[in-house]
């Protein structure tokens, strides 16, 4: 497809989204090192183009379902940086006031219907949201992001068959970053492409896309979203990419074969995209201004989160039930 099928403002949005994710994830990493983020955290460094490409193609009322590796998708839908960083730091200003933590970012106002930390669990849930959209005739599409390792768990299979049989407006996006935690995906999977090579098992088209090319992702996103919105049913898309950080906070990623990281770093999605934009005639200064604006936003969010108090202990007993409380007795 020609590279001028994507308009100027969309391209800028794609660039900005990637930069936002990159700079915020880097900041998150620094905050770990300062022990201001506790527990665990799963960064999307190197995978920014997937989140950006899809989010920019979505309608504001479409649904996002993602995993513990979901900062990127949450941000890409427009959730505030302060809320994201605040949640990672366990502060009152966090998206969920510190109750969920980094693996469970949720911002319903931005269509982020939850980040799910049990591998595979959100695939059926995303299908259910799509069923709801179908029944309500709302035209909404449900987008579900997960990793290569997730393609080997039972819920993947059930959700794919279910969505295909019911022709649901849901798009399953596998971000194949080559690893399930520390184990190379090929060593535990019977096929080369854990998602795409299984599409036929659900009567779906085999789709592999370059997950480090935001334009390519955006085009596939548009196509599959249009199809779903038009009643054409689900898609399963495998985006090839690579996480350049460890699996989670604790991981030095020593399992990488020599040279692998370097190879993929050459294909850094943001460097590639920046180069393309310059080629297409965007001004270096314009991009630089955007970089700075985003950096300022990240800095501000950081300061804001640091200044935010820790959550009040009363919230421990809140929000189990719709009445706001947690009482199990009269």
């Amino acid at each position, binding site marked *: 497809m020609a590279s001028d099928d994507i308009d100027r403002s969309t391209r800028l949005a794609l660039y900005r989204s990637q930069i936002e994710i990159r700079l915020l994830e880097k900041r998150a990493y620094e905050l770990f090192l300062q022990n201001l983020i506790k527990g665990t955290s799963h960064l999307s460094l190197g995978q920014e183009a997937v989140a950006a490409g899809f989010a920019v193609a979505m309608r504001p009322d479409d649904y996002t379902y993602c995993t513990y590796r979901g900062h990127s998708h949450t941000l890409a839908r427009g959730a505030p940086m302060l809320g994201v960083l605040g949640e990672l730091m366990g502060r009152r200003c966090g998206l969920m006031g510190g109750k969920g933590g980094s693996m469970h970012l949720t911002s319903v106002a931005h269509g982020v219907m939850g980040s799910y930390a049990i591998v595979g669990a959100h695939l059926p849930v995303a299908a259910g949201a799509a069923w709801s959209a179908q029944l309500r005739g709302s035209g909404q599409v449900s987008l579900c992001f997960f990793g290569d390792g997730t393609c080997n768990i039972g819920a993947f299979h059930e959700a794919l068959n279910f969505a295909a049989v019911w022709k649901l407006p849901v798009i399953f996006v596998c971000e194949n970053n080559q690893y399930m935690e520390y184990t190379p995906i090929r060593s535990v999977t019977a096929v080369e492409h854990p998602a795409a090579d299984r599409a036929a098992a659900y009567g779906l088209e085999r789709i592999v896309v370059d997950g480090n090319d935001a334009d390519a992702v955006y085009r596939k996103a548009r196509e599959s979203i249009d199809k779903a919105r038009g009643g054409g049913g689900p898609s399963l898309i495998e985006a090839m990419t690579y996480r350049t950080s460890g699996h989670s906070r604790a991981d030095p990623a020593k399992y990488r074969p020599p040279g692998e990281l370097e190879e993929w770093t050459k294909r850094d999605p943001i460097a590639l995209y920046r180069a393309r934009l310059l080629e297409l005639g965007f001004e270096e200064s314009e991009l630089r201004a955007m970089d700075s604006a985003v950096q300022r936003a990240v800095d501000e969010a950081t300061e804001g989160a640091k200044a935010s108090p820790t959550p009040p202990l009363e919230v421990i007993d809140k*929000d189990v039930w719709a009445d706001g409380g947690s009482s199990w007795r009269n």
Partner: protein
Amino acid sequence: MAELTYREAVAAGIAQEMERDERVVFLGEDVAAAGGVFKTTVGLLEKFGPCRVRDTPISEQAIVGAAMGAAMTGLRPIAEIMFSDFFGVSWDMIANEIAKARYMCAGQLALPLVIRTANGSGSRFGAQHSQSVENWVMAVPGLKVVAPSNPADVKGLLAAAVRDPDPVIFFEHKGLYATKGEVPDGEHVDRLGTAKVLRQGSDVTIVALAAMVPRALQAAQRLEKEGISATVVDLRSLVPLDTKTLLVETKKTGRLYTVEENPRLCGWGAEIASIVAEEAFYDLDGPIVRITTPHVPLPAADELEDNTVPTVERIVETVRRTAG
């Protein structure tokens, strides 16, 4: 008042709610065209059409997960899990996802959904189709738990469950499906979290649930003849738990017996006994006695199954022996 079977009351309760609220949808295995393997949902497909009443593949994770996704996006789904034993294959969805979602996101998501399931023994199906797992669910924060013992309660509590803004696990008892009872005409909606005192006595208080309720009542009648006067409480709901009624009724007699079908360890009887042992200790006149299925899987053959779950005889004998 019409007389309905427990089984018919299920369909009646679902139909009442589907008529009232078009957001109510229903899905499960063999539930639509076939009307359910226990014939609890006969006629719903015809009445409400294939968009709202849907047959699914054998994919319990997808069934429960779809209900969750639908509930958080504006519908009020009822999902059927054919046998409660199959909570095993959907446990992550029930215990880790549905139960925790609202809490983790500090109330951003609502999950008004019902999971109906056939629970309990008495059908000679063997260990994997006869379990009572109400205690599994009670042990998980974030789930409401209902288990009616008669047709009127089935309809009224099912309606209440559908209208409740939180996830409710609704246990129907296989062994009660064929039983009959009066069900109020017209719209019937009950209240979750309310136990019922079915019989007032002065010597002992017997607390039971679902299929154990008629047994407790029969036992009470027999004990009456032997000069032991028993209060019988039908719990109806485990979460919310009507601790008020439990404590009041226990204090009146000073002796508490629980009769439960789930296996012994960490059953709901243990929870109730513990609440009473802490909060009504000084009102007790003797040990709290739990009458339970022993801590074994259920055997299949008639005599074996019948003698594993608490029987009327065992209740009578236990109370007689210990109430002195």
